[in-house]
């Protein structure tokens, strides 16, 4: 298969799973005729017909709730949020209905629902088309949260998410949609959920990241390599459950932890990572762990403001360099 973008990988995974399993179908706003605002569902209507991909009214709560209903009866709905920011409008259905359905039924049902869509900043989307909502969901038992950073993972993890029997929030970083490309194999198995991936080996400092900031971290690591600092980069891929064993391995190796994400600092996943590491791996640490994240404000529109708020390759490199020198 030729080089595919992250976006094409998403599209491919959807089609491959729809071919494999007639229970898989897609619902969302403008997903069928238009093929989605970002074209993630392009071609699905033509290949699978209108029973397998449904253009819905603008009703995010309905979308998630109907997904729970269809999933509980054995279908495998994939619900697209046109932008993940709008999940705030279906929030209750996700964190209360979907996340507890199995629990409330004493284990007597399964909810194989995927809620997917574009997240993230860096394209001047401003306050409501730039959000990184993962930390709202990583604190909700009963949900799984996945955030691929490569085209290969977008394909492999989305397949796994679709085959998974629990509600999965699948976060696609919109800045990666067309900027990330790689050669993909003709056939690709699902990538297991819950397993981090070592994106780059190194011995001096561990960067733990996911999603939109992986490319920044790799670029920063590249720069530091030229300075003789050997940075290891762990791509979490699944955010709930988190692969803490992999974090422990890399921290055990380097003794120095830098958590990086595009989400804001306060209440972001980085805090949780740092807390677990200091609780469980205190004796492994050779330096205070650090975070590089967006600043604690909304993601603003003007490019100057947005650049000021978002984490940068420079900040990552500086923090890693500082840790290495500690």
């Amino acid at each position, binding site marked *: 298969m030729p080089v595919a973008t992250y976006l094409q990988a998403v599209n491919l995974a959807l089609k491959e799973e729809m071919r494999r399993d007639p229970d898989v179908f897609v619902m969302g706003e403008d997903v069928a005729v238009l093929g989605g605002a970002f074209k993630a569902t392009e071609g699905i209507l033509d290949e699978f017909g209108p029973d397998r991909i449904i253009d819905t009214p603008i*009703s995010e709560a309905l979308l998630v*709730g109907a997904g729970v209903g269809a999933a509980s009866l054995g279908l495998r*709905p994939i619900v697209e949020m046109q932008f993940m920011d709008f999940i705030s409008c279906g929030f209750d259905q996700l964190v209360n209905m979907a996340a507890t359905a199995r629990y409330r*039924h004493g284990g*007597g049902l399964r909810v194989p629902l995927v809620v997917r869509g574009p997240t993230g900043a860096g394209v001047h989307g401003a306050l409501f088309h730039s959000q990184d909502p993962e930390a709202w969901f990583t604190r909700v038992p009963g949900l799984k949260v996945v955030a691929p950073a490569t085209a290969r993972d977008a394909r492999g993890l989305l397949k796994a998410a679709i085959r998974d029997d629990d509600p999965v929030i699948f976060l696609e970083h919109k800045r990666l949609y067309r900027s990330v490309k790689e050669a993909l194999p003709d056939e690709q198995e699902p990538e297991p959920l819950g397993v981090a991936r070592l994106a780059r*080996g190194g011995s001096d400092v561990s960067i733990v990241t996911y999603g939109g900031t992986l490319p920044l971290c790799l670029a920063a690591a590249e720069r530091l390599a030229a300075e003789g600092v050997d940075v290891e980069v762990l791509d979490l891929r699944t955010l709930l459950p988190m692969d803490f064993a992999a974090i422990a*391995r890399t921290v055990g190796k380097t003794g120095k932890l830098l958590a990086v994400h595009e989400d804001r600092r306060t209440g972001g996943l980085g805090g949780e990572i740092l807390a677990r590491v200091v609780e469980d791996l205190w004796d492994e640490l050779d330096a205070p762990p650090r975070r590089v994240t967006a600043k604690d404000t909304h993601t603003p529109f003007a490019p100057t403001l947005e650049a000021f708020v978002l984490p940068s390759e420079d900040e990552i490199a500086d923090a890693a360099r500082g840790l290495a020198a500690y």
Partner: protein
Amino acid sequence: MKLTREFEERISRLHLQNKVFGGVYSGRGQEAIAVGCCADLGPQDVVFPLHRDLGVFVVKGVEPGRLMAQILGKEGGLSRGKDSFLHAGDLSKGVFGGTSMLGATLPVACGAALKFKLRHEPYVAVAFFGEGASSRGDVHEAMNFAGVHQLPVVFVCENNRYAYSTPQSLQMAVEDVAERAAGYGMKGLVCSGNDLAAVLETMGRALRRARDGGGPTLVECKTYRYRGHSEHDPARYRTEEELLEWSTRDPIPRWELYLEARGRDVAKVRRETEAEVTRVVDEAVAFAEASPEPEGPEAFEDLYATPLAVPEAPEGPAAFEPEPPQLTH
């Protein structure tokens, strides 16, 4: 109906005995709705009961013992002690349990109905909601979607004129919730929720329409709850006249009169029913009381269908490294 009522009586009694903790919501006076709406449903039809719809569970065939154990928070309950009162379901009997969030099951019912439609199955989803819940956005989104896709779903509004202390006049500016049906391109029907025959008849029409591909119906059943919002609520916001007035319209004697008019020996029916009801409830209570309390760690069970035993991460640099990002937007 009698079974529902006796079941509830027993719950009230248990509540008084302090064996039920957590909220208890009585549907006393409204029993005809659950019975009338579920009588003609099969096990594959899926219902979405409300917090007062004990009768829905009973008529749909949920085991009384498990139901009572559910209410007592026992391991043998539908949610295995996880959630309280009627926030639990038994999908094997076609009962989907809701969250507490009012109106939130209506979108879920649409999803179930969508499945029936996509699979050309002759089943129906039936979602119950109060006139209070009708104010929630979820209800609107669900009804609109059901209208667009002409889904086999029946929305049953149990209009008992109060939402906790809030009278209907502060809940909406219309007399009938069913007036809204037209705005969703669906049929709205109103009937007395205290008249089992009327509920059966009205629901029958809605179910036939749904099964024949005629789309959704909004059935509004006018009724009244005799007791407070929950067992803690003395319901002082209502007048005694109103309560008395509605007491004369109790669904059980009304149904008995109906049977009598059709030549049934009501005294005999009553005797038999009462004996049967007592037996069933006694057994349910016995089962529930014998059911063990969960110990604690079960709190982690049933969270996931596919729990992830996180395996070892593949070591070494990944086979694929993404190119540095090329921002194209």
